[in-house]
């Protein structure tokens, strides 16, 4: 099995279980305050890490290339509350234009 299919099957199964566990096993119960806060902070920590590695990591080194410029443009778009689609298009177009010039 390829890495891609292995990831598809395992992540799919894990996600199905994560989503179903509460509704199937513990209907109506509330989560303890502390654990809710940890999970709440997992999302910003992970997403920020994905922003950083997606823009500046190339294999095992840090680089500043067109992706960084695209991220900067995306940052401006996010700051002015552009819709998600617009943010993505602006980043892609910025990187594509810079590559076309280079």
């Amino acid at each position, binding site marked *: 099995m390829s890495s*891609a299919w292995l990831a598809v099957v395992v*992540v799919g199964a894990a996600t199905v279980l994560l*989503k179903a566990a509460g*509704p199937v096993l513990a209907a109506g119960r509330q989560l303890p305050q502390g654990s809710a806060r940890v999970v709440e902070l997992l999302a910003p920590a992970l997403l920020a890490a994905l922003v*950083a590695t997606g823009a500046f990591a190339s294999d*095992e*080194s840090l680089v500043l290339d067109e992706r960084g410029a695209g991220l900067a443009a995306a940052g401006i778009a996010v700051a002015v509350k552009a*819709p*998600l689609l617009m943010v993505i298009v602006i980043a892609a177009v*910025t990187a594509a234009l810079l590559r076309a010039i280079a």
Partner: protein
Amino acid sequence: MPDSTAIGRRRALDLGGYGAGLRAMMPLLPAVLAFGVSFGLLARAAGFDGAAAIVMSLTTFAGSAQFAVVSVLGAGGTAAAAIVAAVLLNARYGPMALSAATAFRGGWLRRLLEAQLLVDESWALSRRDGGFDRRILIGAGLGLYAGWSGGTAIGVVAGDSLADPATLGLDAAFPALFLALLAPLVRDRRALSAALFGAGIALALTPISPAGIPVIAATTACLVGLRLERQAPA
């Protein structure tokens, strides 16, 4: 009404409720479709076969985790690193689904299937004071599911006719997308510090660890955020 029979609830009476959920997610549909198309394209670019990308959207149905898998594998990371990153990203669905547990009905199989329609957007849209509107959650969830899976299929097919995705700047779409998803989450100081520490840890580890590990290690940033809260409450 809550205890009416399954047959009664399947009548057109309830379609109005599900329809309201569909209407509620409509403004999100173009973005979800485009997002799905992007996933299909990027999955192909990372070496996924088309069926794997579509099956993943049908079963995992969680944007950031799916992009994380493609991102880690595309960067040469191992399947284990991709799986751990995605499962950690989706860990939030445990407590989210638990909080909405009362919205689901019937036996275990039906609850299991209905719970798959819970994603960030359907969860947020169906939130009502103190509880969740079951029909909004399911109606919105079905619309999002169709948009996401359909978009993925379009992206996979279009991917065959497109050249190098880097030429189109699609690799820059990854971080932009995560930034757009992150922005609404960093409303308070705890979330902001978790995000900053997460990014810092990931960047610091990138030159010295295999692809995927920096992102996993960044999860420890959430502990820093909790510590900060204890020091400076409110």
